[in-house]
């Protein structure tokens, strides 16, 4: 009904008699109908009207599309159209199927109806992380671990794959396994197990090359997925979130959460909306008050100084503790505490510093949303500082181990000589019997040590998180509920009452955990598997904990308008975890007797080796030209530039289209009424 009817088209459905003009007009009408079909969803018509218009347009397109191909090309054109339609239908069915396969949808909906969309967004984020980690695990497991286990040399055949003689007695003890020593250390979970054979098995699988490429593609895939998610979120978020122009309007029209399906939550929401309105009214009336600016500034500076002192203190503490653990590892009888001191200290710092920061921040007297941003920034700085101090201390350890390698090489040479001489004396054979792999002296495999440290850190982080939830939420709820009957004051209304779900703390925990996984997965391929298990159990455990022990928030202050704040943090952490790994790949020599790169001077030499031996000669030449810094640096700059432009482009796309949409919308409405 939007375009003039073409009387001739229904009569002259006969190829030869269609003139050029009529064909062109017919094509235009078909295009118009197609556009109508694709924008049908956006029109504010009733479903009945939409369906009838849709059917009419589809019938029109079907009838006349075939006629548009000219002469002999007609059959091919009709065939192409049919295949295109089948493809669209297939994609739609596949999308429907994919939506049905999304796990935990019901669980998240339940949390959402009780706690609102903010808490549910944490679980949606957790689910997304689970998906990403599952893919990474699939990559690592399928391309690195399985080939080595199936096609590589078995356990016990080589020194690097065997528990040394001295440790064999205790290798199966639980306490040793819990520290990731013993049999676990010499398994496919860690870097040191992998053989440096260039090709393994009958498939001639290039394992060292695969190991290197999988390590790089872990970062590449994560980067791609995070950026894609940010782009999708950017489409939904609005331009300026700190807009103060519509406070009351937004409070009125967007404060009720339509997802609420539970009377208790609804009561809470009503109360919080009422409080919100009253507070805004008070704010509005007080906004002309005079404040003592100087006192406020002084207090803020003081607070920042105190916090910087805390951060430096915690960094120094970690450095000190890591150094101590290195001296402990050389001693014989170390207790459980000495062995796990580093992890305990780091977890305790992570638990007690954030509340300390919050207390100090009370001096600053910021608006809660701004205060939340400062708090998150400080926690971020704390974790980053701790992690990097830990890494620096670890680097000292690595350098020490590298120096030790020469000593071990000498010892090995002497030992083999001695073995050779003694066995030559006993038998008259030409070649001496080979030394049992368990007896060969080992170099200190620094990569496996680094991997073990990261795995232990991750495991202790998991344990601390779960214990905190159990004690801080569940036991607290039990205490408040049951002891309330015989307590002097009302535990439920006053202190300590039920816990609220700490959204930002949990999201940050997830983000930092992922950073550690990214850092450690190159040296401990099994780490991603551990993380997948952790995320899976977290989903069930935290859903249960939230539903059983938490209460909905009284006031919600979001740190950002969309999820992009946390995605931005994730991106930052991705780059920061890439740095140490890239540094060690580029500048540290791999251990001489363990891992897939042993024997090379640098790990990245595996690429050169593969290109020289596996590809024809001219490709090697091309790569050697491309590896010129003069080409690489401009390429990197170009990439950075185009990455920067994406969010700007997305923002530009939003504004004019929304203005246009408003105008066209109004026009369409008027047209509808006329029709």
């Amino acid at each position, binding site marked *: 009904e939007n375009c003039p009817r073409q009387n001739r088209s229904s009569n002259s459905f006969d190829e030869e008699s269609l003139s050029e003009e009529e064909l062109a007009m017919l094509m235009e009408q078909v295009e118009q109908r197609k556009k109508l079909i694709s924008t049908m969803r956006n029109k*504010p018509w009733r479903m*009945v009207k939409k369906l009838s218009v849709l059917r009419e347009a589809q019938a029109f397109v079907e009838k006349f599309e075939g006629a548009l191909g000219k002469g002999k090309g007609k059959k091919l054109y009709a065939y192409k159209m049919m295949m295109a339609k089948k493809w669209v239908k297939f994609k739609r069915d596949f999308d429907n199927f994919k939506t049905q396969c999304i796990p935990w949808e019901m669980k998240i909906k339940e949390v959402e109806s009780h706690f609102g969309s903010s808490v549910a967004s944490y679980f949606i984020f957790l689910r997304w992380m689970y998906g990403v980690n599952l893919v990474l695990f699939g990559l690592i497991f399928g391309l690195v671990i399985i080939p080595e286990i199936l096609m590589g040399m078995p356990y016990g055949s080589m020194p690097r794959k065997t528990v040394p003689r001295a440790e064999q007695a205790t290798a199966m003890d639980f306490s040793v396994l819990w520290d990731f020593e013993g049999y676990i250390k010499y398994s496919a979970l860690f870097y040191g197990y992998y053989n440096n054979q260039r090709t393994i098995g009958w498939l001639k699988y290039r394992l060292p090359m695969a190991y290197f490429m999988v390590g790089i593609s872990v970062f590449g895939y994560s980067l791609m997925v995070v950026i894609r998610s940010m782009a999708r979120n950017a489409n939904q978020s*609005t331009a300026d979130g700190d807009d103060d122009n519509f406070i009351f*309007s937004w409070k*009125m029209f967007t404060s*009720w959460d*339509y997802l609420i*399906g539970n*009377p208790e939550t609804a009561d809470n929401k009503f109360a919080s909306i009422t409080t919100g309105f009253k507070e805004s*009214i008070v704010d509005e009336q007080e906004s002309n008050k005079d404040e003592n600016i100087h006192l406020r500034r002084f207090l803020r500076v003081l607070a920042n100084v105190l916090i910087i002192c805390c951060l430096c203190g915690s960094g120094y503490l970690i450095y000190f503790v890591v150094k101590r653990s290195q001296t402990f590892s050389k001693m014989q009888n170390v207790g459980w505490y000495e062995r796990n001191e580093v992890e305990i200290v780091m977890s305790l710092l992570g638990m007690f510093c954030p509340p300390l920061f919050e207390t100090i921040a009370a001096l600053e007297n910021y608006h809660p949303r701004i205060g939340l941003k400062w708090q998150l920034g400080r926690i971020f700085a704390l974790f980053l500082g701790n992690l990097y101090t830990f890494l620096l201390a670890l680097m000292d350890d690595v350098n020490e181990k590298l120096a030790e390698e020469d000593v071990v090489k000498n010892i090995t040479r002497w030992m083999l000589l001695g073995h050779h001489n003694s066995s030559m004396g006993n038998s008259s054979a030409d070649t001496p019997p080979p030394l049992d792999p368990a007896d060969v002296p080992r170099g200190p495999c620094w990569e496996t040590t680094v991997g073990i440290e990261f795995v232990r850190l991750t495991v202790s982080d998991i344990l601390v998180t779960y214990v905190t939830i159990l004690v801080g939420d569940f036991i607290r709820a039990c205490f408040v509920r049951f002891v309330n009957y015989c307590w002097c004051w009302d535990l439920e209304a006053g202190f300590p009452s039920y816990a609220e779900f700490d959204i930002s703390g949990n999201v940050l925990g997830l983000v930092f955990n992922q950073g550690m996984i990214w850092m450690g997965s190159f040296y401990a391929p099994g780490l991603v598997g551990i993380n997948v298990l952790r995320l899976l159990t977290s989903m069930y455990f935290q859903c249960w904990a939230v539903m059983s022990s938490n209460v909905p928030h009284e006031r919600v202050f979001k740190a950002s308008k969309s999820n992009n704040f946390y995605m931005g943090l994730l991106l930052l952490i991705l780059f920061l975890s890439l740095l140490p790994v890239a540094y060690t790949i580029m500048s540290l020599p791999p251990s001489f007797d363990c891992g897939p790169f042993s024997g090379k001077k640098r790990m990245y030499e595996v690429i050169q080796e593969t290109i020289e031996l596996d590809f024809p000669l001219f490709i090697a030449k091309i790569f050697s030209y491309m590896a010129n810094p003069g080409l690489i640096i401009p390429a990197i700059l170009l990439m950075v530039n185009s990455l920067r432009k994406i969010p700007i482009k997305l923002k530009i796309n939003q504004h004019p289209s929304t203005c246009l949409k408003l105008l066209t919308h109004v026009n369409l409405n008027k047209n509808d009424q006329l029709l």
Partner: protein
Amino acid sequence: LRGLNNLLFYRYRDLAPQLVPLDYTDKPDVTLPYELIGSMPELKDNPFRQRIAEVFSEDGDGNMTLDDFLDMFSVLSEMAPRDLKAYYAFKIYDFNNDDYICKSDLEKTVNKLTRNELTPEEVRLVCEKVIYEADLDNDGKLSLEDFQHMIIRAPDFLSTFHIRI
């Protein structure tokens, strides 16, 4: 979309299995009364459920046919575009159906949101502030353009104007 429609059909039927036939090919003229719609778990705690049902029902009384029902949940779903949601939100908050959100509509909205716990003075202040903030053409009431201009920028609109079923 088809999967969602199937689910919605069964939810609709579950409200009154004796009234709703399983076979819809001959387009039966079945309308469910508002009381059944308003008692759905997704809607029963919503202070605006009556307005929502009225806006999407054909007769404007809240009695919904299957098509109205599908309409309602598809607009309130995650996938509906922002402009469509804004259009229907405007209609929901326009209590007297005069295509403008006037002061009395605002007062009704505030009172529903706070369950009448604000004093009349506070209610008046809030409504005046809203008109001051959002009324662009200065006619003392919010037209569709004013409303859309304001709601498009709201960070929470999409996440709160959403029912998952």
